[in-house]
């Protein structure tokens, strides 16, 4: 169990947040409130699945929020045109795949640094989303009944989908050759390549997967609120924070999905509670930012590796 020491710390922190809530305003913990607030967690969670894989390979994707916005707009346009729900969804997914594939191609095959690529696509995707929206509907599009019924209908489609994807991603990481390959790439890409690991292919796939997840998150968001170019604004910060707080090293090679999930939970609950109780968004920001830094400091302090013997 020592291997999961950090995850236990995260669990403890979540406990602290919930305990504080219990003391300060137990209403926060009531089922209705939690259910209401939890609707946002799926979007964050979905995006972190892909981001975890990317950061493990020592990469990064700053464009997930913007891709989400672009997907949301494409969904909106389809809904506006009264296309059937399945078609709307398909177009949205394809948009996400395309966005992810562009990132993937540039990072994996053209070999541009992921920070630079996603910095550019961060602006580009958001720009296209805003442009498309202004040029057509010039306003957010309410979710069509079709989409609404699928997402927020009786059967909890999103939670189930998320759980399935999370489990699949976790297994992928720990117990498949591809996962071992991702860790290897994160540690030493050249040596991984020299060992026959399909580096370019794996990298392409994880960025594309992240694009797909952005599309799913967009569908979630649009059903919950509306399809707009603003979807996912600033969300990438939360996504990266959740993954890093969850114990994944930004340098690559280390990280577990269970840690990411706990990170998501911690960031989500903290954000929701601070918002709920103090009702001041600035406080939330300060807390989240501090949490991110303290998490990394704490991780290093508690689990500092033995200095290498020469």
């Amino acid at each position: 169990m020592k291997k999961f020491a950090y995850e236990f710390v995260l669990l403890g922190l979540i406990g602290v947040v919930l305990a504080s809530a219990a003391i300060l305003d137990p209403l926060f913990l009531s089922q209705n409130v939690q259910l209401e607030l939890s609707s946002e967690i799926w979007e964050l969670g979905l995006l972190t699945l892909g981001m975890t894989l990317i950061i493990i390979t020592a990469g990064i994707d700053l464009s997930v929020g913007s891709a989400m916005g672009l997907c949301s707009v494409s969904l909106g346009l389809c809904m506006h045109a009264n296309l059937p729900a399945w078609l709307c969804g398909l177009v949205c997914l394809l948009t996400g795949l395309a966005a992810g594939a562009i990132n993937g191609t540039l990072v994996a095959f053209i070999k541009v640094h992921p920070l630079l690529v996603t910095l550019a696509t961060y602006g580009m995707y958001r720009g296209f989303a805003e442009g498309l929206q202004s040029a057509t509907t010039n306003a957010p599009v309410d979710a069509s009944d079709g989409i609404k019924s699928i997402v927020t209908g009786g059967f909890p489609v999103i939670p189930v989908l998320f759980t399935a994807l999370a489990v699949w991603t976790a297994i992928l990481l720990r117990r498949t050759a591809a996962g071992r390959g991702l860790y290897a790439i994160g540690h030493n890409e050249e040596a991984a390549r020299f060992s026959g690991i399909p580096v370019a292919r794996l990298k392409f796939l994880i960025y594309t997967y992240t694009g797909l997840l952005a599309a799913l998150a967009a569908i979630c968001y649009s059903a919950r609120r509306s399809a707009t170019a603003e979807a996912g604004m600033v969300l990438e910060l939360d996504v990266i924070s959740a993954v890093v707080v969850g114990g994944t090293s930004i340098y690559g090679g280390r990280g577990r999905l269970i840690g990411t999930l706990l990170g998501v939970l911690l960031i989500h609950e903290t954000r929701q509670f601070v918002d709920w109780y103090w009702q001041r968004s600035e406080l939330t920001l300060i807390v989240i930012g501090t949490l991110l830094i303290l998490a990394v400091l704490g991780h290093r302090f508690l689990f500092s590796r033995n200095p290498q013997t020469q």
Partner: protein
Amino acid sequence: MSDMSDPMITIENLSRSYGGVQALSQISLDILPGEVHGLCGENGAGKSTLIKCLTGVVPPNTGTITVEGKPLSSGDIHAAEEAGIAVIYQESTAFLDLDLVDNLFVGREIQKFGLLDRRAMETQAQAVMRRLDLTLDLHTPLQEFSIAERQMVEMARACLRDCKLLIMDEPTASLSARETKTLLGLANQLREAGVSVLYISHRLEEIFQLCDRVTVLRDGKLVCTTSIDQLDRNQLIGQMVGREVNSLTRCEEREGQNNEVRAKIIGLSSHGQFSEVSFEVQVGEILGIGGLVGAGRSEVARAIFGADRYDEGEIQIDGISLKKGSIRAAMDAGIAMVPEDRQHQGLILPMTVSENLSLAILSEIMKHCLLNDGTENERVKQLIQHLAIKAASTKMEAASLSGGNQQKVVLGKWLAIKPRFLILDEPTRGVDVGAKAEIHRLIRELTAAGMATLIVTSDLPELLALSDRIQVMCEGRIAGEIDGASATEEQVMRLAFPRGEEQPI
């Protein structure tokens, strides 16, 4: 030769430990002025720790170092520099993005009124380059120089200061014979000027050629310090290893050769690197590729393995043409390569020994699409036994192994795919004598058992001892072929040098 005056450097009772490991214990030795003092020992014997203590990078736990009678403050890089201790490392401590002048003066720039005095630095740079007989452009970024030239720049850097002790740590590992000769000449120059040299090398020929005395370390302890004429090569090795070892005699019995061609390389060309390279390797045969650094040997090896693309030509394995530029295709055809750079290409240092060993056979240790621990552990155990890898546990980081064991892990990773054609690029560089012998034995065994082997090595004795045939490359082309059994170093060298160049003596 040195005169028996007061020692230049005195080391007394030096000890240093890291974590629980005693890297140096109670080392006492002295170095005389104008002496070239060799330092030998297997990897892990404590040589680099000793260097770090001398240069102030790391403070010793106990003991003192005295330079010309004055004690040296420990753990202080600047103090060591001021005292006249300079070091040339094997790994590049060069700043590739900076130009030559910057490289010479980083950390001790000449300044005037707070601004850099470029003119003064350039003048001094010119002077030192002249002294060393180097003609490199001062304003070129170091990136554009060859590895050998960069090493020369570091020598220049070390010579800028008034040097009392120059430590040379495996300086010739990446140098060609001619460059080595220049370097050794420089060491002699310094000796005549009264500078002491501490010379660390695995290349025993150099030790015997250059040194007055030699100190042997083993497991952190001083084994002996003797004058070089009181030892012969095997005795020296014996002192280092604790037993007599000799792997460099040729095995006259060559088994397993049956003239069946395993690998055929036809007209391979890559613009700017090599051209019209053709040769064959038979089953049960070890083909050695000799030549100077920069002749294109490693490039050919990488092209065969698919790590680099090539422009023209064909590679056939068992008669079937191989797709170019694909490591996967090469592996599927049964090719394995132990690369030149162990730390950056061969191993993933933060991963465990077990993970490194299984890295190339991930598809084989799966059951129902998932990695199977049991299968993995079994295969890993087999490899560790076969290669006699010394590791306390398979779950330890590869980084914590000694050089020789690390190389065995790389070799093991590749042997796991049961290769039909094994390429080795500098397989025993930085490997201690004991492990070197084991690796040689393994190569011979595996080849005899039905593999074809290609070995690229700058270590001439190794090349001559192992190869059945030797192809020598020169400036990107095959210069000639020599029969392994009767080859001599001169023959190899003669082919390795471009026509019209001065031959080394």
